[in-house]
């Protein structure tokens, strides 16, 4: 029997990762993480969301916590909030 071979269509994948629908999905997930981080923050919970479509893919970032100068507080909130992204489709 002939062996099967899978060849990824990289151009199509790159196009898919840059579609408006993908941008919207990344934005929903990023905002969910930001909201969860604000909810669990031990400080004021001021997080900002940055979403953009780059050359290869849409990407999102959650930045903060702007209410504190303690990086440990920001880190703890962001780590604890990551699961919120999984809950959003």
């Amino acid at each position: 029997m002939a062996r099967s071979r899978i060849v990824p269509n990289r151009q199509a994948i790159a196009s898919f990762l840059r579609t408006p629908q993908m941008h919207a999905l990344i934005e929903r997930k990023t905002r969910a993480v930001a909201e969860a981080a604000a909810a669990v923050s031990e400080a004021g919970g001021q997080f900002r969301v940055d979403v953009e479509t780059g050359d290869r893919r849409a990407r999102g970032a959650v930045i903060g916590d702007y209410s504190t100068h303690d990086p440990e507080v920001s880190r703890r909130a962001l780590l604890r909030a990551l699961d919120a992204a999984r809950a959003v489709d």
Partner: protein
Amino acid sequence: MAAPVEFPDAVAVVRSYLRATLVERGVDVPVVTRVPASRPPRFVRIERVGGSRLDRVTDRPRLDVTCWGPDEGAVADLTAVVRALVFAIPGWRGAVAYDVADVGGPITLPDPVSGQERSSFAVEVSLRGTALAAP
């Protein structure tokens, strides 16, 4: 009804593993789950900070691992060993760990209370559950 599946206490599993493998390497430092009021010169703290069930038999806890030490060099050395050991947990006989994923690499965060140097990194460990014992 589907058979209930229970997952191991991820912090306890990784703590036991780390303590045993650190001692094997001659690195005799406490591995704890809470920061002691009186901090030793060097120690490791493991804390679960989330994570979720991947499928019926796989849990994927997110663990925050922090290493304390008397100076930057000691912390860097301890973090390097602990991080290497954590990524080597798949295959250890104490638990069925499928894989370890990097969540955030080491970051230097001096302890504001004791003034000690410390460094943290986060991972996700896939652990296999077992059938819940009959009552």
